[in-house]
């Protein structure tokens, strides 16, 4: 008998679901309640909701784990950092630190704001500040590399001063307090919860304008205004932020088109037309710090030979590659792998160098000369590693090399998606312990506008290790000397000259082939006013999203 009841029950459930499905569809949004079905742009009463649609969710709500755009979009607003980047990206502005000063080459003093409370009502003390800073410095977290120059932190409970002692002068330290690891957490809560802090089962307590209300993994994260926010609550137009996880590109575009989300970003070329058709939504772009380039593995044959690298570089038609792969917002690079936004220290000089230095445009004659001058005048063979998603680009390069008629053979090795970080960061090695690939398409996004954001990671010899981002495995003593010199220098104009000199060496030695840089794009509901800057990754906050007057 029970089984009959069970099947009857099932039939009932299905019938009911059909009915509710139909009725809610036909009656429209008026009957829809609750966060999930609340249509973006339609606010219950005076409450203003801002709905973000993004394909992934943050790994956690703990600032130590903030390493992706998902964290930027929903996590950062629960916390404050010591400083903020200015909107155009090159300057710093006060946040939890009211003011700051560089006392000498290796000492920085930050005056911390008094009377700040966490979203649970606790006072933010200097102990919390010290704890938060030490936590990300001592432990090997994802962003700990930012703190490798820190010797110690010191706080003064009476004067509310945080003193940072560096091991050696570091011209880029000034930017670090504006990055997410310098978010202040509540020591008591974090210590109580231990590993659970910021996880689905734990809490999230910060001093930011918004605080976590609910998190339904894979579906939705909701934040609301923090009642204890130290800033002026009247400047916050948005009462509630709803972050919807919509993994499928097409579905996300349809959600924007049907007005279910107010904001989306990084739209793919395939779905862009759907977004463009969305009513009451506007697409904007801004110059970011992203670029795409090809890396030669300079530590093994055949690309340990500079002329072999040049022979391949001269075969590649960058413009054609950009048109094929880059999409609507891509611009072909010049001589540098750095995007042009990062030339701000001395725009004229950097632009001039970027345009006039050798940029290895397609030229089969020069390729032939380079090959003849190389160790392999009779040609060579190399392995180009790619994930299936980017195979079209690899095939394009393959056919360009074939077109040159030179005796160079490029083999495409398809790696699994799961192996891409292992290969590109050098964990996967050949029998000699060297990076396994000969060539790789890769890219980079800088932590800040300062050119060091590329040079230190992608070109510096010290970043050539397993796990390092020097994917060309390129080590040049002169380059390293100049870059290290620029770190000790505090005068930006001298630093700029030193870095430019270093870049010239890098261009001449051709460890990478610059391909294209691309603008970031986002779409936002017209009822909101908002502008994004190049430091979106650290700067995004819904506090800057205002209702149009």
């Amino acid at each position, binding site marked *: 008998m029970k089984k009959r009841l069970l099947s009857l029950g099932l039939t009932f459930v299905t019938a009911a679901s059909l009915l509710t499905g139909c009725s809610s569809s036909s*009656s429209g949004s008026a009957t829809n309640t609750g966060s999930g079905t609340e249509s973006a742009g339609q606010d219950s009463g005076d409450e203003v909701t801002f709905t973000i649609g993004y394909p992934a969710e943050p*790994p956690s709500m703990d600032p130590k784990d903030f390493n992706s755009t998902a964290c930027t979009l929903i996590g950062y607003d629960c916390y404050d950092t010591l400083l903020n980047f200015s909107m155009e990206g090159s300057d710093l502005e006060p946040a939890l630190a009211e003011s700051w000063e560089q006392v000498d080459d290796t000492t920085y003093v930050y005056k911390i704001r008094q009377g700040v409370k966490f979203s649970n009502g606790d006072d933010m003390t200097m102990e919390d500040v010290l704890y938060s800073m030490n936590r990300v410095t001592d432990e090997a977290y994802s962003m700990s590399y930012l703190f490798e120059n820190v010797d110690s932190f010191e706080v003064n409970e009476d004067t509310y001063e945080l003193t940072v002692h560096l091991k050696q002068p570091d011209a880029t330290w000034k930017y670090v307090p504006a990055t997410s690891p310098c978010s202040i957490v509540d020591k008591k809560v974090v210590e109580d919860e231990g590993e659970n802090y910021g996880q689905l089962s734990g809490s999230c307590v910060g001093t930011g304008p918004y605080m976590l209300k609910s998190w339904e993994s*894979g579906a939705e994260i909701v934040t609301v205004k923090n009642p204890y926010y130290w800033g002026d609550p009247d400047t916050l137009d948005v009462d509630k932020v709803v972050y919807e996880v919509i*993994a499928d590109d097409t579905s996300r575009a*349809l959600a924007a088109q049907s007005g279910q989300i107010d904001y989306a970003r990084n739209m793919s070329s395939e779905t862009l037309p759907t977004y463009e058709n969305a009513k009451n939504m506007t697409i904007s772009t801004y110059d970011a710090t992203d670029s795409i380039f090809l890396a030669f593995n300079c530590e093994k044959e055949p690309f340990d030979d500079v002329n072999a690298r040049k022979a391949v570089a001269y075969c590649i038609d960058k413009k054609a590659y950009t048109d094929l792969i880059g999409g609507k917002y891509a611009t072909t690079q010049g001589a540098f792998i750095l995007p042009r936004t990062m030339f701000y220290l001395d725009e004229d000089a950097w632009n001039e160098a970027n345009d006039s230095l050798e940029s290895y445009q397609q030229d089969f004659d020069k390729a032939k000369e380079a090959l003849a001058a190389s160790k392999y005048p009779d040609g060579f063979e190399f392995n180009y590693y790619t994930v299936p998603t980017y195979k079209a680009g690899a095939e394009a390069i393959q056919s360009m090399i074939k077109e040159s008629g030179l005796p160079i053979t490029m083999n495409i090795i398809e790696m*699994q*998606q799961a192996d891409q970080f292992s290969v590109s960061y050098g964990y996967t090695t050949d029998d000699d312990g060297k990076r396994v690939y000969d060539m790789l398409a890769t890219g980079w996004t800088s932590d800040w506008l300062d050119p060091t954001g590329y040079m230190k990671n992608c070109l510096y010899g010290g970043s050539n*290790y397993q*796990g390092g981002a020097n994917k060309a495995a390129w080590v040049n003593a002169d380059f390293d000397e100049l870059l290290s010199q620029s770190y000790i220098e505090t005068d930006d104009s001298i630093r700029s000259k030193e870095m430019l000199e270093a870049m010239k060496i890098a261009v001449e030695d051709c460890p990478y082939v610059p391909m294209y840089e691309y603008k970031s794009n986002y779409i936002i509901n017209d009822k909101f006013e908002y502008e994004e800057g190049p430091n979106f990754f650290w700067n995004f906050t819904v506090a800057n999203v205002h209702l149009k007057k």
Partner: protein
Amino acid sequence: MKEYVKYIGKRIIAMIPILLIVSFAIFFLLRLSSTDEAAVIIGERQATDELKARVTQEYGLDKPELIRYFDWLKGVVVGDFGKDYDSGQDIGELISSRIPVTLGLVLISSALGLTFAIILGVISALHRNKPLDTGISLVMLFFCSVPSFLVSVLVLLILTKFIPGYSFIGTYNNFGEFLQRISVPAVIMALNQLALLGRVTRSSMVSQLQAPYIVTANAKGLTDKDITYKHAFHNAVIPVLTVAGMSFANAIGGTVLIEQIFSLPGIGGLLVSAVQGGNYPVVQILVMFMLIVYLIMSLIVDVLYVVVDPRVKLQ
């Protein structure tokens, strides 16, 4: 009643070795590839040797694989499913809210598909070679051959275009909202099953209606209703159930794509990204979960055999 309990109990005990074998296979098959698990956990960022060592130690990656397998198995038995490589979240936490969605989709679509398949298949068989039969067969052929993800995208396009309030994002707060979110994808999945099962029902029913015993029954003066439902149907439904068992298994796999398209917070999206990203602990747990659902579904089908056909005995 008692023999049912005994039978089901026996079947459940028989599942344990299957689960153990599959868990062993999945654990080691995943690790046959050369993917560096520590690199997957570190992900796309610069890492020092210190960080890699910390990750290796924290996740026990340096232990021999057989020991890791038993550690994992021990954890699963006591409800500790391990940590997600991607986010570091507890996998139990991660999937507990997602299971009802996937389970709801599978159950509703299977029940719906089977019920309507039998009804339409029988109607079709009774009107064999008449316009109604041709009509039903054509529609079924259509849904059988069009992949359900394509139907999903089309339906989504139509719904968002013509029904302004239709929402397919976010979470649900109560049972009504839950049903509203999963009803459309469940119906689409049911259509796919219905097409297959309906065609089987029809042909099985047709062959029964032509069998000699039907002639005998007619000769003895039984009513059409009795002949159709008491005799022909009982015999015709058995192959349908067999196919239904397999079709349910497909439904579990089918949720993966449909959940992505309707952005349902089920396990499908999680599985796709876990497989692509080499997130082994999540793949292991989800495969085990799907296997359990499959085993239970086939148990239900086996019990249904007994209910519909008195000649089949519980053994």
